[in-house]
Every structure is written in C-alpha cells, then in structure tokens.
C-alpha cells in the first residue's frame, strides 16, 4: 500500500514536471508553414525589412523556406539555424540569448549542439503543442524576433 502510494506520488510529480514544458504535437504541414511565412513576410514588408524565413518540423528538418530579395546572404543559413534551435530545444532563441547575456555559467549554452543564441527563432505552438520552429534572419535580432512572432502567431 505504501509502495503503491509512492508510485502514484512519483507519477504525479513527473506528470507535473512534464506539464511545465510544451509537448511535441504533429509536425507542421506545408499549408501551415506557408501561412506562417506569408504572415512573417507581411510584417517584414510593412517595416521594409529584407529577411529569410525558415519553417522546420519537430525534428529540425526543413519544411518551407523563402528569402526576400536583397536579404544578406549569411541570413540564409542563420534563419534555418534559428528555426532548428527553436524546434529542437522547444524554446525561443531569445531565451538562450538572455542566458548568455548574463555571463558566467550561462555561457555554456553557446556550446550546446545546434543551439542558436540570437533572437529570431521561435517554437511554433498550436493548441499547446510544439509543431515545429520558425527562424528569421536579415535585420537586427530583435526585429527578426518581431517577424518570427508574426509568423508563429498566424497559426494560433
């Protein structure tokens, strides 16, 4: 009886711990990916920002991508890197950026595999589940973040 109670308590605890981080859902489909890119681009165009936008599935594989004219060449890969980081770590790249900015032990984040530490990558969350990531690059990091948010929000 005592053992059973313990098991139940442990189960409840691990469930509570799991509930704190969003869980993965079905990966983003092409229709959703195109919608997110269109919304992100509308925001970018409104501000006159040339950017590249990448949408990745829950495993960090490319689903859709589009580069606006006059986007700097480096942003092609950076956009994909940010989207991948957001998808596979299930958190915005801004979270890592802030951790690194505080210095000290937080600097270890820069050594995490495939982690991007620059604002502009967001997990795409639909109905509380992470279905992929969106990565944006081309302007200042916080501006990339604005475009990424517009894209991710379009699927809410």
């Amino acid at each position: 009886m005592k053992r059973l109670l313990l098991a139940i308590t442990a189960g409840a605890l691990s469930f509570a711990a799991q509930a704190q981080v969003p869980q993965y859902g079905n990966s983003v489909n092409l229709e959703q990916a195109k919608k997110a890119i269109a919304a992100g681009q509308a925001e970018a165009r409104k501000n006159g920002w040339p950017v590249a936008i990448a949408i990745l599935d829950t495993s960090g594989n490319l689903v859709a991508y589009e580069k606006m004219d006059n986007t700097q060449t480096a942003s092609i890969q950076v956009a994909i890197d940010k989207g991948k980081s957001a998808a596979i770590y299930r958190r915005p790249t801004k979270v890592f950026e802030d951790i690194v900015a505080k210095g000290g032990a937080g600097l270890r984040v820069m050594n995490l595999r495939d982690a991007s530490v620059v604002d502009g990558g967001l997990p795409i969350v639909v109905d509380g589940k992470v279905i992929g990531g969106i990565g944006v690059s081309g302007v200042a990091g916080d501006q990339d973040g604005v475009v990424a948010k517009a894209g991710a929000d379009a699927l809410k």
Partner: protein
Amino acid sequence: MKTRPLLTQEDCLKICAAAEAEARRNKWNVAIAILDDGGHLLHFTRMDGATPANAAIALEKARTSALSRRTSGNWEERIKAGRTSMLKMPGILPVQGGVPIIAEGTCIGAVGVSGVQSHEDEQIAQAGIDALLGKGS
C-alpha cells in the same frame, strides 16, 4: 561591365508553384529547392508526405546543378558510362532531379526535386523552370 539576370523572389514563387502543380497533378509528394548560382537557398517547399531525407536530397541535387551548371542527371550518366572516379567530385550528388536555370546563356541558379523516381523528380524541376523561361528552355 558585364551584367547578368538574377532570380527574384517572384521568379522563385513562379517556379515553385508550377513545380508543385506538376507534382500534385501526378499525385507525387516531393521536396523542391531553388538555389541561386552560388548555391544559396532562395526558396524551399516540402509537400506533406515527402520525407526529411527528401528535403536534404532536393537541396543537394539543386546545389550540384547550381555549381556545376549541368543537370545532376548528367553526372549520373557520366558515372554510369564508367567514369566511377566522378563519385569523388566535391559537392556533387550524381542523381537525376537537379536542373540548372539557364537564362540568356548564363546559369542563374538551379531547381532540385526529390520524392519520386528520379526521372519524375527531373520532370517536376523542368516544369518549374519552363514556367519561368518558357518551354524548351
């Protein structure tokens, strides 16, 4: 000074829409990558049902064609004909499905497709390029 044509975002949308339509018409699920002549990604689409492997393969086929200025199928043929040493060429994926975009005699980029049989992949890539440059381009 020499000038040359440049692929715009609008061109990429045109290419991708036609390629996707060709794939859908045949009920094929594929990944379609469009690169510029430096091998930089301009546009990418992975249709539902196409695998993560297709995503990587489409990119590599396109890169092969963009940088070598010939179809990836051309590389495949040369190897099939016996030049197996070509397998060691850097950055070359010798599998049909990558087609260079030649405008005004210059390679301005390439389309790479992966998801079905490789001659069908090439058919899709060519349909995309035809939409931009006209048939028989």
